[in-house]
């Protein structure tokens, strides 16, 4: 997991690049939903709160960090909006950017369960580690450039 700043900025940058071609990404309110969506898979981090109390829940909540789990969470969140279908699609795009970034990471074993529950195959490229701050640094610079240009 790159940090949340990296995820949010990556979503922001992608939206602005896609906004050149697709009008839907030029509206700030749509970009804000994509940014929220980019954090959906990391709802799994509620496990850290349980860790503080010595309760192990990771094996149970792990599907929250899978596309199938994220789809359901996006569905739940979209029910809180008037334009639920549009918001749902934007959230799906948002969490897709999250998995794209996480795909670069590597652990000693496993990887992301992208096809769960149909397959238990773990996917990872192993290019960066989760504490690598350089990717965040690059994204901050890119986001600032895009913010000043657009």
């Amino acid at each position, binding site marked *: 997991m790159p940090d949340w700043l990296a995820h*949010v900025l990556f979503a922001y940058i992608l939206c602005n690049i896609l906004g050149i071609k697709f009008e839907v990404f030029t509206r700030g*309110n749509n970009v*804000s939903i994509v940014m929220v969506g980019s954090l959906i898979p990391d709802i799994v981090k509620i496990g850290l709160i349980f860790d503080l109390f010595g309760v192990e829940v990771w094996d149970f909540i792990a599907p929250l960090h899978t596309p199938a789990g994220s789809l359901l*969470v996006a569905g739940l969140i979209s029910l809180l909006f*008037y334009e639920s279908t549009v918001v749902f699609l934007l959230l799906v795009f948002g969490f897709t950017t999250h998995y794209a970034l996480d795909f670069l990471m590597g652990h000693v074993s496993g990887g992301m369960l992208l096809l769960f529950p149909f397959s238990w195959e773990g996917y990872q490229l192993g290019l960066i580690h989760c504490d690598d*701050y350089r990717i965040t640094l690059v994204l901050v610079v890119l986001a600032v450039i895009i913010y000043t240009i657009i």
Partner: protein
Amino acid sequence: MKDMVRRLLLASIFISLLMLLCLYHYLNHERYEYPGNEEVIKGFEGEVSIYGVVINSSDSSETYILVKYGSKSRIVRVLSNLDVENGDKVEILGFLDENGIMPEKTIVYKKWSYYLIFIRSVIAIPIVVYIFFKYWTFDFREMKFRRRKDA
């Protein structure tokens, strides 16, 4: 009212499916993953993938890591020289026996580097909250977010 019932029904379905996914993972994950912290604490020996905190590296030839699972923990000796300091987090894939673990693959996260992840993540929260509420407002009557007209 009709819309509220529909939303509650859909929410119940989504939550039920999410619970089913979680339960399916919880009951089956051991068949598809390397034995981890839970099994090591229970005394498993063999090929394992564990995660822990370095607790003693004063003697450069030996490193010990504290492996935790919930409220339970176990100290595991690492049978290899690692460039680590107390408090560093390590992921190890290797063979565990009564003497310790012989790493085949190791990832070390420096203590400061690990905590910086949380700091960078916390920075993102006010940014997202600010941008979101700049463009969206909550309609308490309908219990739904709507786009701000002035944004």
